[in-house]
């Protein structure tokens, strides 16, 4: 997590999974809404999701999914990007804005502690709940497992 690329990937992933309402309420708590210029978007598009059967299977096209992307620049000159699943343009814009603010050394700590960390906790908990629910109904396909090894 120490190198800048994976650190940025982490917060961009957390923002991409958050709802516009969450991000907006965090930004609103900080008083003035950070002013910014939109460089591109928000615009909708499709990406091809590729999958792989098992660990060693050939890659195949699973299907297309809708994504929305947006790029903004803050008044301090930081450029933030966001790619989110779905068609919520407002969410993409807010996520891009927070990505830009996270790159600002003066505001990084404030946003990390105030927004990214709580959202990460929330998302981890939600993921664990879903995993627990799914695990209860899991079926083990022994034959296939044996084949693969």
């Amino acid at each position: 997590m120490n190198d800048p690329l994976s650190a940025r990937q982490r917060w961009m992933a957390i923002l991409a999974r958050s709802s516009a309402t969450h991000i907006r309420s965090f930004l609103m708590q900080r008083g003035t809404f950070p002013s910014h210029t939109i460089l591109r978007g928000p615009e909708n598009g499709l990406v091809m999701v590729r999958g792989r059967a098992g660990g060693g299977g050939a890659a195949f096209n699973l299907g297309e999914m809708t994504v929305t992307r947006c790029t903004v620049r803050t008044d301090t000159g930081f450029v933030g990007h966001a790619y989110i699943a779905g068609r919520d343009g407002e969410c993409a814009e807010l996520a891009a804005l927070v990505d830009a603010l996270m790159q600002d050394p003066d505001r990084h700590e404030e946003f990390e502690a105030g927004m990214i960390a709580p959202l990460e906790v929330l998302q981890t908990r939600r993921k664990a709940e879903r995993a627990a629910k799914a695990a209860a109904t899991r079926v083990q396909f022994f034959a296939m497992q044996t084949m693969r090894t």
Partner: protein
Amino acid sequence: MSLSPGFADPVADAQSCFRAVLDAMARPGRVQEVGGVSGPAPLCNAAAAVLLTLADPEAPLWLDAAAACARAWIEFHTGAPILPMADAMFAMALSLPVLAELPNGTDEMPETSATVILQVSSLATGRRFVLAGPGLREPALLTIDGMPADFSSIWGRNHALFPRGIDLILCAGNRLAALPRSVTIRDA
């Protein structure tokens, strides 16, 4: 280096700019107005608008040394790959490149030649050229500032290749004009 926005209204602005380029190509030398974008230094607004309209990930672009200052902006907004001169479909230049080094198509596929987007100082003042050819019932006058002194003979060699050859889009400020390969030029 800070990025600036592209077209204010990406769909409508790109369509009206495309229409302006079509009209300019159909009526060589007639000056068209384009807008919708504020060009990043050193590009003028018209050159930036033409790039946003024509360049895309499937249309490789070559930039001359001066235009390369805006490389980040061009790559971000158009997604066009920046390639060497010989592989480019479009060229963005601030001074006239050597036309013979750009792909000028083949007799079977003349449409594979490159289109040069050339930023000039002005389309209102400067040297005057007389244009003649398809799209012009009578010879037309075009005023260009910022062309090399021997431009008429350079263009003569390009025109002689017809149906092969380079098409030129001239941009200055918010205005553009085009010189398709079919047009002949002489000094006025």
